[in-house]
């Protein structure tokens, strides 16, 4: 009656996790998308949002602070990667980062005011814990030896920033 991995899917999504195209259960939701949309809507009143990269749940409540911290984290990291001559889109998709490397980018960032004002990002320990929060939500994956990679869920937060100026007349159009 229920698709395979049903329990895993429901548990993960209800814990606020993203299920990304890298996960085996992504395919199950994808194949049964209509079922899961209805299932979460009728059972809990939650909305299942999905695209080619990931699925996640939203409800009337949102954890605005965590979401803001994650958005700021990616904005600063991408900005610094670019300054370092790296292609941040490729780096986020395919590279692993040592925790010290990430800490270093935040230490040398020019966005000091924004970082200082953020209790999750303003020092090494908090930054580590913040990455722990992202692991919990399956936005980052711990690869061992203090190395982390990012799942496709990171796109939600960087596309959000990109879309902030989508409607502006592009006087700086390249």
């Amino acid at each position, binding site marked *: 009656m229920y698709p395979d991995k049903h329990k895993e899917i429901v548990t993960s999504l209800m814990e606020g996790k993203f299920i990304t195209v890298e996960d085996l259960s992504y395919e199950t939701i994808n194949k049964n998308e209509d079922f899961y949309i209805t299932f979460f809507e009728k059972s809990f009143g939650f909305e299942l949002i999905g695209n080619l990269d990931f699925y996640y749940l939203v409800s009337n409540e949102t954890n605005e602070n965590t*979401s803001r911290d994650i958005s700021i984290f990616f904005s600063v990291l991408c900005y610094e990667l670019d300054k370092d001559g790296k292609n941040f889109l490729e780096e986020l998709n395919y590279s692993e980062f040592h925790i010290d490397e990430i800490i270093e980018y935040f230490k040398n960032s020019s966005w000091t005011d924004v970082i200082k004002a953020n209790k999750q990002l303003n020092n090494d320990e908090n930054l580590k814990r913040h990455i722990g929060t992202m692991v919990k939500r399956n936005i980052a994956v711990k690869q061992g030896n203090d190395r982390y990679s990012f799942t496709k869920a990171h796109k939600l937060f960087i596309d959000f920033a990109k*879309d902030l100026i989508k409607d502006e007349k592009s006087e700086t159009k390249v």
Partner: protein
Amino acid sequence: MIKSEPKSILQFMASHYDLLRELFDIQVKNDIITKESLIICLENYDKDIQEQLTEYQILVEQNDDFAFNEPYFVLFEFIHQKFKPLLPEEIEHFGQAIRTLFLKIKEGINDDKNILLERIEALSNQIKKFTNAVVNNTKSLLTESKELKANNKKIDYQEKIHKARYLIENYISPLNTILDVNHSQSIYNELLNVSQFTNVKRFDYADESIRREFEKLYHLLRQVAKDLNLQSVTLTNELLPLIERIKTESQYLRGFHYYLTNGNCYKEIEPPRIFVSTRDNIYNKFVYENTKEYFDQFQHEEDIIVVEDSEQTNDWLFDKSKYKETLNQNLPIDDFFKWCEHSIKEENEDFSFDNFFMVTSLLFEEDYEVSVSKVGKSVSISNENSELIMPKLTIKKQEDVSR
């Protein structure tokens, strides 16, 4: 006129290469070598060769300053493969010369043989110059774009976008047009026309020497077509995607910049909605993060200010000692609850049962002995809202009992 032997000049250049290279870099950067920078450079290398530099015409004077003589500058550009990109207008200049010469050749095909030969030779030269210009331009634009992408100079993204836009608008797009086979006015198409014409004339022209010139021109054009095609491929496969990537990244970077600037991220911009997980077990491996996240929700909340209600309320306070004293004075009392009612009514006619029960708490003081009255079983206590039916209790002092 240069008096020195060519070999001496080349040897001189080899001996003082490092100095010349530095002067070359100065000119690339500033378009000129000022007198001061020449003197500093000579001092740095501890060389007194200013006289030879002008004698061999490596440097020429420009007012009080200096510049590389054109042939040397081109030589240095070539051996370092470091070309200043030509503006499309400069390249178009070759295109114009090619078009004019080709027109003259077609119109004067039966004119004087010598002028026809010279025009064919001039056309070949212009085609070679044009091809070199395009090859060098593609190379230098690719180098510049790669440097921009790698951001070796660690420039800010706005400057990077500005430079990328500048390269695209002024160099890359026009170069693309020049090489565009689908663009009827492109120089590349003009060269194809020249090639077709030459291909016919190398066989059917009456004069053999002219046929031979057309033959040479035709082979040159075949080579040029290959070279230009290669440049076009480089442009399409490398340069344009590179610029496209800079462009895509810049859209993201503009977003990040806007989000982070002036603390915008802490103001009105709402981040993406994410789920608030509701249930947590103590053995959940993320219990720490979950708990932290839960409490973090309230961190940025605005301070709650409690405004005192300005309307005065008549809060009744139970003055136990006062009531006890009165009670003691009236002991023994046959009907305790009625006494409570009377006492409280003396103070406040509109009493509540909460107030009433506070007074009745005296019943539990250790000083008294309480018993149920034998006369009359219950009493009624009432206020505006309701009525209480209470037992009739007699109350005495403990000591009275002992006595």
